[in-house]
């Protein structure tokens, strides 16, 4: 009897892993198939790439938990890149005063994050106050953001973004640096560090603060949340603002990574972010979701992408396989949920 219990405990732990399970399988698979995959360097690289979907995914998780969706994240990435690039390369010219202002990188960072928050607030305001469907609102801001990003430079790239000592605006490249580099160890990419810190904070806020529970409640039953005195509008706007801020951050990070800002950066990244969130077990219907899940989901997406590249899978097959893995992963997740419920039932009955 005791042995059996041990067994079923093990099985339960496996089942609770859900997507983690898929992640591990993928990891083992690629380690075997692509021999350069399981090296420190490759893994650090994967982390850096994962950070991109991951940070977008954190904001997206919040939004999806309230039952919304944010399609504008990709275009905010592009827009922020263009604004930051423009501010560094061309500065801000005040025609009436006849001067051109150059801002330091911390100021630019703040401006950009504020810009992301602004887009988020607009999204949130339209969703919460005007009661428009999140899908359509953020589809609209997606188009607008992408258009503006292109208009900023007339479709050109800002490539001179390292700044100029004399103007005091050097330092944007720090968003692509590595820390803790010791000897042979190349250091952890700053994006990955940011990702883990943000994920920890976001997970904490979601489960340990009233704000977190309020957004879970809004997603679960908006009317009941309202009648419970939760400020649905304020919280919804906050959530979209957070998503906007995350996107703005990624805008700066990618800009540093390619050392240029290109107006089409971030095109369709929202889909990767959403996929990461859903793979992590967050329900599109709202009310259910964890940040930990999103982190795992982001790793799944990142590992398939990098792994397939290393295996030399052709572009077209990569698409097919990505689609299959996404569907399979949620399928396995669902299957585990059912099995888990069944096993819990059995365990209880036995103990009765």
């Amino acid at each position, binding site marked *: 009897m005791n042995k059996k219990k041990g067994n079923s405990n093990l099985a339960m732990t496996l089942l609770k892993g859900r997507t983690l399970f898929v992640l591990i399988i993928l990891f083992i698979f690629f380690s075997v198939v692509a021999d*350069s995959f399981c090296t420190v360097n490759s893994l650090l690289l994967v982390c850096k790439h994962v950070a991109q979907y991951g940070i977008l995914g954190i904001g997206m998780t919040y939004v999806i938990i309230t039952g919304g969706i944010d399609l504008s994240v990709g275009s905010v990435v592009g827009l922020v890149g263009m604004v930051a690039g423009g501010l560094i390369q061309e500065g801000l010219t005040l025609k009436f005063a006849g001067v051109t202002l150059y801002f330091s990188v911390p100021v630019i960072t703040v401006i950009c994050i504020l810009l992301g928050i602004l887009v988020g607030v607009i999204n949130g305001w339209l969703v919460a106050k005007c009661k428009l469907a999140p899908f359509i609102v953020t589809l609209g801001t997606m188009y607008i953001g992408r258009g503006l990003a292109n208009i900023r430079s007339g479709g*050109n790239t800002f490539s001179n973004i390292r700044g100029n000592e004399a103007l005091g605006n050097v330092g944007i490249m720090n968003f692509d640096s590595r820390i803790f*580099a010791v000897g042979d160890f*190349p250091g952890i990419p700053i994006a990955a560090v940011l990702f883990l810190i943000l994920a920890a904070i976001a997970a904490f806020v979601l489960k340990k603060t009233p704000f977190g529970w309020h957004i879970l409640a809004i997603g679960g039953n908006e009317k009941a949340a309202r009648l419970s005195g939760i400020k649905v509008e304020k919280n919804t706007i906050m959530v979209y603002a957070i998503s906007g801020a995350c996107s703005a951050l990624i805008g700066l990070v990618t800009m540093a*990574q*390619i050392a240029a800002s*290109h107006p*089409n950066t971030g095109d369709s990244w929202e889909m990767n972010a959403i996929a990461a969130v859903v793979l992590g077990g967050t329900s599109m219907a709202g009310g259910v979701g964890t940040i930990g899940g999103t982190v795992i989901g982001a790793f799944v997406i990142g590992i398939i992408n990098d792994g397939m590249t290393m295996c*030399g899978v052709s*572009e077209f097959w990569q698409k097919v396989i990505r689609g299959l893995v996404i569907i399979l992963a949620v399928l396995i997740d669902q299957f585990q949920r059912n099995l888990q419920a069944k096993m819990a039932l059995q365990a209880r009955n036995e103990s009765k």
Partner: protein
Amino acid sequence: GNSTEPAADDAAEPAATEASTEAAASDEVLNANADNKLIYCITPSTSNPYFGVVQTACQEEGEKLGYTVKCVSHDDDATKQSELFDTAISEGASAIVCDNAGADASIEAVQKARDAGIPTFLVDREINQEGIAVAQIVANNSQGATAAAQALVEATGGEGQYAELLGLESDTNCQVRSDAFHAVIDQTNMEMVAQQSANWDQTEGQQKAETILQQYPDIVAIVCGNDTMACGAAAAVESANLDHEVYIIGVDGSNDMRDNIKEGKCLATGLQQIDLITRNAVNQANDYLTTGSTGMEEKQLVDCVLINADNADKLDNFVYTE
């Protein structure tokens, strides 16, 4: 040796990087992974057969010379390209052949490869900085577009209204080609009445052309930034049942365009000899890795061939055989 030595733990320090670039410009040979015999071929999406040719040519030529060739696509996303370079570096590629995702946005990626001791050979599209790629072998876009435009002016006699379909406006090629077209056409009496972007896309090209034809049924020519859009425009012209000829030109030299030219639906295109360019790049990569030099300038322009009804037969899969 499989292990990679990323020479650039200081990549973050812009000043330092710049300095090392200057220093490393010509003397140092980038053959950190020469023994791996691995070539990474990074191109835009091969759902445009033009880039498919880059991959197949690279594959064939590389294998002939005893290399393993891995072909990947960056989908014209500079960030994804940067990630692919990362992957190539961490996998220890001997050389990278790349059709890049943006003249400015790709500099950093090429620099990264250089810092890791991997030579990059750019094909088809150039970048806005010299000294970091080992070779930049590009089709002379400007010359090709000029030739096509001249053919157009000849056909129309330099009279009439025309429309232009631009590619993706954030692409460098889009601007280069458009400038070349205008340099020729604007010398004549021809007048541009509409200019629209069709994002290099065939369906969009067809729809935009259809709408423009509706508004300006008298136009005598449609100037297209690439052949895909030109094919779309040709379909639109055909279904519009006009009572006069509309001349369509493009740039690229795809098989579809060739067929359209043969059937008289399109006038001319500038063939970019991408197959030749890519093979050159692979051979130079091999030379460089084995001898330490390509024996050529960094920037190499390969002229385009004007394809019209007379010589269309000699074109197949971007290969022009005399």
